[in-house]
């Protein structure tokens, strides 16, 4: 079981939330990106062994969208890793 911190409600059971997917890379400039970079942006979903940034919707709650970092090895909600996203 995960307790997900909602900015409005505080920590709530994961069952109140709907998974909104991992946070993808920022959209590159289509005029500057190579074809390979563009294909990577469109098709590659972040799937690290370790911290991943995710969105969750507090659907059976206040309705807020929440962005968290979750460690895929432990299921722990962790602080954002240092360095660029």
């Amino acid at each position: 079981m995960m307790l997900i911190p909602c900015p409005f409600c505080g920590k709530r059971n994961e069952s109140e939330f709907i998974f909104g997917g991992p946070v993808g890379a920022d959209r590159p400039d289509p005029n500057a990106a190579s074809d390979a970079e563009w294909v990577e942006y469109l098709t590659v979903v972040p799937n690290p062994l370790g911290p991943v940034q995710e969105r969750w919707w507090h659907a059976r709650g206040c309705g807020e969208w929440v962005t968290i970092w979750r460690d895929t090895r432990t299921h722990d909600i962790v602080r954002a890793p240092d360095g660029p996203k």
Partner: protein
Amino acid sequence: MSYDVQIDRLGRVAVFDLKGTADAVGAWVKDILPAFPVRPNTRTEKNGVALCYIGRNHWLLRAARDAEERLEQRLKPTNCPADISIVRVSDTLTFFHVTGPDAADVMAIACPLDLHETVFPPDAVTYSEFFGLKALVTRCEGGFECAVEQSFGDMVADYLARATA
């Protein structure tokens, strides 16, 4: 195992959904509203009308059925300014009361919230889950009140009967 609880299904309750900032909503209908709750997921009450702070810029006004028409006339949902929204939602919800010595035990079956009084005080109100359904949960005299989408009313009544049989 059976529980020492009483399950009551309420008749119609007057509920209005209010969206907008407290300032904007208050500017339209301040005089009939209780003071706006400041802490998230709490409610205030005045003259039998409860104002529940259930989301960012989102409030529910709850009152007895006989107050519904008076509130509707005063809230004027169809004439309200564009920066707020007021919708009568009374007929979208079915309310249950779970009361008695074992009320908290029955709630623990249905709802993932920590309902201890230190975490869920008397003025607490929040959307959560009730048997997996989105539900409005608050306290009432001697126990807890839960409101689910009205089309699930019979099903939830059945779940409660089975859980407490």
